[in-house]
């Protein structure tokens, strides 16, 4: 069985976001880009599956502009066998992105397609289950850990109030959250090997976007707060303010 992991190039989570002059994008000046952390967990999960004999080949795929090659190289360095870049840019319409990916995945030979539970740039948290629904495959979301059991995949989902354990038949789509799959560091050997491996590039299906980003805005600054004092003696005043001023107790 082959596994395809869909990854996304996103700004580092330590990035201070500034809005570009267009008002609909971030200012890319000085921004460092990474593989979205949840996608890294997904890739790690795929690599471990391969190492334990559960998967034959691991492919990392992205929809992105040429700069996303950097993230595909990272995936190769971690141990992916193949990488594919679909030429295009994921926009605010998640369903359009899902359609592009589904068009490619429909004919791909993959028993398991993994996604990060969400990309940490636009936080849409919708692409995986949309792709699965479009392909009419089962999908389990927010999975902290999974294992193959015959022709099914057993998943531990992180849900409100606990862990839910479900299973679905293969082929399936699974979205991975933080849990058991702390990503490995790429070895020097892996990094060197990654430079020699081919990077496949393909045109993406053309899907019109129907969700439009009108404006990107920074949140209002919170008004300056007050330091009430030092140590436990400041507690009674804090409790009084929480009750009488903020009215939250």
């Amino acid at each position, binding site marked *: 069985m082959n596994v395809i992991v869909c990854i996304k190039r996103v700004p580092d*989570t*330590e*990035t*201070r*976001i500034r809005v570009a002059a267009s008002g609909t994008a*971030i200012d890319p000046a000085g921004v460092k880009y990474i593989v979205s952390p949840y996608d890294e967990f997904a890739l790690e999960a795929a690599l471990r599956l391969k190492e334990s004999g559960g998967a034959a080949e691991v492919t990392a795929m992205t929809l992105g502009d040429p700069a996303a090659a950097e993230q595909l190289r990272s995936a190769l360095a971690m141990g992916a066998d193949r990488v594919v870049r679909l030429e295009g840019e994921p926009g605010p319409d*998640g*369903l359009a992105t899902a359609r592009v990916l589904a068009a490619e995945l429909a004919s791909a030979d993959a028993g398991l397609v993994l996604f990060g539970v969400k990309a*940490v*740039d*636009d*936080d849409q*948290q*919708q692409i*995986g*289950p949309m792709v*699965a*629904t479009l392909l009419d495959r*089962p*999908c389990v979301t*927010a999975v902290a850990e999974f294992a193959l059991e015959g022709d*099914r995949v*057993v998943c531990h989902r*992180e849900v*409100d*109030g*606990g*862990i*839910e*354990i*479900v*299973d679905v038949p293969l082929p399936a789509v699974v979205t991975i959250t*933080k*849990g058991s799959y702390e990503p490995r560091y790429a070895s020097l050997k892996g990094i060197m090997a990654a430079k020699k491996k081919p990077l496949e590039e393909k045109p993406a299906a053309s899907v019109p*976007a*129907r*969700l*439009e980003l*009108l*404006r*990107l805005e*920074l*949140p209002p600054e919170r*008004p*300056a*707060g*007050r*330091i009430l004092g*030092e*140590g436990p003696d*400041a*507690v*009674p005043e*804090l*409790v009084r*303010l*929480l009750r009488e001023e*903020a009215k*939250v*107790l």
Partner: protein
Amino acid sequence: MSKVLAVAEQKDGALRGAALEVVAAAADLAAGLGGEVHALSLGGPGLQGAVGELAQFGAARVLVGEHDALARYLPENYATAVAAAAREGGYAAVLFAATSQGKDLAPRVAALLDVPLATDVTALEVEDGAPLAVRPVFAGKAFARVRSSASPFLASIRPNVFQCQEREAAGVVETFTPTIGEARTRFREFRAVEGTVDVGEATVVVSGGRGMKDPAQWSVLEELRDAVGTGCALGASRAVVDAGWRPHGEQVGQTGKTVSPKLYFALGISGAIQHLAGMRTSGTIVAVNKDPDAPIFKVADYGIVGDLFEVVPRLAQEIRALGRG
């Protein structure tokens, strides 16, 4: 007429708090569009008695879809039923709660209906007769205003952001016959985590960071959580989750949950940018840190400089005293 469908989540036969918020948000949206709200509640037999409350919070009609196959949330069954209801009703908008269930369900319904979805929305407006959504991106470091050119307009709303209030006119509760799909997801087991209130839905969050020094010290935070009582959940910074001190489910920040409780306690948390992103939309923020220059004090409404192992137990004690007074 522009009707709005509110998907009202229940758990074990009881309405979730987020369900009332969805109905309330739908009522405001419907008022802007010049239409009415229908609330859809799906579940096993016996649901009808539990969801009548929705009629007091702005739903003109409460559609109750009881079926054995809906007793437990199985995504294919729920997605099929909601998509069918949305199609049959000819709604202008369909709203979900961005809970664990809503986050799983809404994208599937969007794909079935072939319309885009705005997730985790914090504000809804009507502009030129069409809905418009504001949603946080980069975990709240920025907000995106989005508009859909497709119909119905689909959105999931963030818990604890939309106000719900009882309305004067009460709606009617009706039986609804749900369309049942073919579930391929097989439920095996649910393991409840203690504390039970999810940090993403809690009205008060007590969060600990590296300043807690040792995972064994968490009893100090549990004591404060218990003093606050119902609706209070524990949270954690990335540093302590990465260190294995606390489960990821508690993590607040860009690679964890983005939360908007009424009250947020940041205890021994310095305030890394990715953590601030996840909690800055909280109503009131309280910080306790021994470093007076910690960035957390820049976003906190109230701060105390000091040893949290002295401050927090006193805080728990004072809050308990309020309850007795």
